[in-house]
């Protein structure tokens, strides 16, 4: 049995439209999620001990700078405390 192709232009147009619509519907959620991601990913690995906080990687030098800034702020706050008592 051999299949004979019937070159009807309407059939081709319907076929192309149908396939295009199907692909669009299939991919629409993916495009929506890509445009405005709402997933909470990446998955956060939980330690049994302490959960890893969401902070950027701190290199040693940066950590020192951060510590100094923190120290300065603490000093400022502590300096204000006696004035509050007065």
């Amino acid at each position, binding site marked *: *049995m*051999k*299949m004979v*192709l019937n070159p009807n232009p309407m059939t081709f147009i319907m076929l192309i439209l149908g396939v295009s619509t199907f692909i669009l519907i*299939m*991919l629409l*959620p*993916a495009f*929506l*999620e*890509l445009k405005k*991601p*709402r*997933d*909470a*990913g*990446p*998955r*956060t*690995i939980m*330690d*049994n*001990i*302490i959960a*890893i906080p*969401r*902070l*950027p*990687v*701190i*290199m040693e030098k940066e950590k020192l700078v951060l510590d100094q800034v923190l120290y300065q702020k603490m000093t400022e706050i502590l300096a204000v405390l006696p004035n509050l008592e007065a």
Partner: protein
Amino acid sequence: MIVEILEALFLILTFVMTAYLIRHYVFTLSVLNHTSKRKKAAVTTKKEAYQPPVSILIPAHNEERVIGRILQGMTKLTYPKDKMQVIVIDDASTDDTGETAEGYAKSCNYIKVIHRNHGEGGKGKASALNAGLKQAEGEIIFCFDADYYPQRDIIEKLVAEFTDPKVGAVQGRVTVLNEPQNVVTRLVALERIGGYRVDQQARDSLGLISQFGGTVGGFRRGLLVSLDGWDGSILAEDTDLTFRVYLAGYKIRYINEAECYEEAVENWSDYWKQRYRWAKGHMQCAFRHSLKVLKSSNLRLREKLDGLLLLNVYFMPVLVLLSWIVGVPLFFFHHPQWFSIFWTLIPISLYSFVGNFAPFFEVGIGAYLDGRTRAYWLIPLLIFTFLYNIPICTKALADLFISKILGKNCNHWDKTVHNGNSYIIN
């Protein structure tokens, strides 16, 4: 005559593809079943008292952007530091990898750095790991890639499995760190979810062939030495080692709770390089181990069957291409005589609705079990990675045959570039 040959070929291809789709469903259902059982069962703490000396190998070739991160992770591990040795193999790096690692080695006495120059180093991961193995003193040898970042108690979780003398190796779960970066990293993350959360978990639960993934895993030192370590002559040294472990009569356990972050490839070019290496390496393993797996007296029938499917998985995209080439002319020009159109339509429709989507169901279930809310909206896009894998695997197979015919070594190691993009850690 040609038509009959094409028909026979098409039937064989359909049979092979059906075998893989059944495998996908069995794995998916097994994981769903396993998870519901685990929820019901009380959580038992593993033999945490078992803390043998361990060595952690970190091969690194030009990894200055990420080496500090993993070493920082190593310092945060909760495993007793007096029982832990971390060996960084600075494999002929031309950047500051060695210097950064040395900085950590100065402040932590359990971190050691091996510097390999251009003469001895730069020959690939297997060669670097073997150099590290020579210096390793631990009973259990772990290896982590430089772009990884481990969970703090990962060693305890992995090492606990070695209380069973039949366990020769363990494998932990890999989670993509830079997932939000772009569409490539998002799709790789989905592939990883399917591959680890479902595939690996199911193989472990069903007592099949759990695969050592080349990183986030460990071996008994004695077994590793007796197997002569990693084989540098094969591109998928991890898969090769997996089958050598099983053929030696040991098992590999997959521990889903032992998790580690990885940095996924960020663009399609790197994706091609990585998958090409995996495909070619896997195919090398298939040629090397398929017959041994069938003949082995150490493997049960189910392990043999799963081993063969695992070894040959990278041939699938090539076979799909072949089935298209064979199927389309057969469909248009020669309908099978032995089926009426009606009876042909039923299996075709069934396969189209259920069969083609089997791997996607697997990923979807993995995302669901991970509690991901919207990640599976991207699943339809995985069709593009599947289509992309067709030329990758076809080229890998063609190159393998050409190199065999010409007798040339085709094991060029295309290193993946890691940029150290962090989204969660520290």
